[in-house]
């Protein structure tokens, strides 16, 4: 696992539960710090996946960020109050559009 002594002063919500984050880090980094390794299931087989490359290349850290699915969480800096949800399989753009 990955840990740190200072959990940071920013609060984001993962699946509704608050987790602490450091200003300037990515959402994926904050999730790893909170011990959350799996952020989505694949649309191909439903297998769980989580951050792998942390540099925007692998597209495995996709999650729903503030209602928008398929977001590369390793490229998005944390913001106070941000809502993150797991992405289950294919992204439902029709539901996002209706929201």
């Amino acid at each position, binding site marked *: 696992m990955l*840990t740190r002594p200072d959990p940071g002063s920013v609060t984001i919500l993962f699946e509704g539960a608050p987790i602490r984050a450091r200003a300037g880090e990515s959402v994926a980094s904050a999730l790893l710090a909170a011990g959350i390794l799996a952020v989505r299931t694949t649309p191909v087989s439903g297998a769980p996946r*989580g951050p792998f490359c942390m540099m925007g*290349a692998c597209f495995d850290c996709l999650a729903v960020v503030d209602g928008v699915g398929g977001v590369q969480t390793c490229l998005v800096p944390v913001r106070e109050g941000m809502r993150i949800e797991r992405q289950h399989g294919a992204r439902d753009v029709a539901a996002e559009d209706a929201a």
Partner: protein
Amino acid sequence: MRVDLAIIGAGPAGIAAATEARAHGLSVLVLDENPAPGGRIWQAIEARAAKDDEDRAAQEAVRAFRASGAEARFGATVWCVEPEGRVYWSEQGRARDAEATQVLIATGTTERPLPIPGWTLPGVMTVGAAQIALKTGGLVPDRDVWIAGQGPLLLLYATQALAAGGRIAGVLDLAEPSGRRRALAHLPAALRAPSYLARGVAWRLALRRAGVPWIRAAEIRAEGAARLERIRFVADGAVHTRPASLLLLHDGVIPSVQITRALGCAHVWDEAQRCWKPTTDMWGRSSHARIAIAGDGAGVGGAAVAALSGRIAALGIAAALGRLGEAARDSAAAPLLAARAKHLAVRPFLDTLFAPLPIRPEDDTILCRCEEVTAGRVREAVALGCLGANQLKSFTRAGMGPCQGRMCGPSVAAVIAAERGVPVQEVEPYRLRFPTKPLTLGELAALHEQEEALEPHTS
């Protein structure tokens, strides 16, 4: 927007090029998808305390770049570069574009994929990924964290992690021992740049002092149900199983060729580094008149070489745009070229010592993470007559997912080559097309509507 020079990537090469180009009066636009300058190696350098001279030099380079007057856009993901110089990117959910007389691509490297059984499980990441988490989030490894593979970054990360208070369960060295013997032949030349060798020795010593087990291993597997639970490997002729909370893989880095490939720039196989790279001349110019490449994306040389290449490329571009005479360009470039040659003297030694691992995946090992295509499926397609990665893509969907083959390109080519019994450079790699990064249909559609508004219908 119109600029003299658009630079893609704000790592050591891009930053140095922007600063140099501004010094010669060029208007410069720098685009980077990260939130701050520094690239991989200097990631979050402005937010961290300098630990050594190298950090201080990096901070100085970023300061000079910030003060240079170059327009820098972060969180800007470039998805298309046209040969005539138009650059398209996405920024805060909007597609934008700029016209540049010259484009410098400084997009660095990605880690060479190391496909092992179970590498798609949550809890398996790359060493580079853990290093980014360390630099940007202060995250250190703790309890049952294993590192496996080979390469200088593996050593560097392990040392950095320990220095930051982390704990590592062990390093599994997957390199074949013959590399060490062959590397010795290149040692005399490498002594021209002794600092690289000194650092390597210091890293190994730091690991030994910290009591991190260093195990020569093979046939590593990641296992677990919904996430990584344990690793299994062969060492000293026996199979070992160890609990693992995190497994970090590494097998060196290779140039990111997405943009140069999509542009149709000429590429050449680098036998020493076992990878494709764009063809460049001493100024970094590609086979396209308006496109240049600097930094590790043109061949891996490290941060110091990247920064020098960035400055050299900027001098070449300034001269090409008539802002600098050829004599002035040459005299400014002479010391940079000499310094670059000195740094590069160590490469044959390092490239041999850290030769990439052979790719011999079992049939049920996933190669294409996006489409979940296994090595066995790739082998079946070769048996059906696929000679290269493109027909293979059609037959298996490998490389068709959102990463566009970044995670499977080299290993798919290696498996095809092995099946066909030909050298890997004879296997045609994935043909790439823009957009090289995903953007939404809405963003793209807005570009059309914008154009419609500018050009009323004549019909």
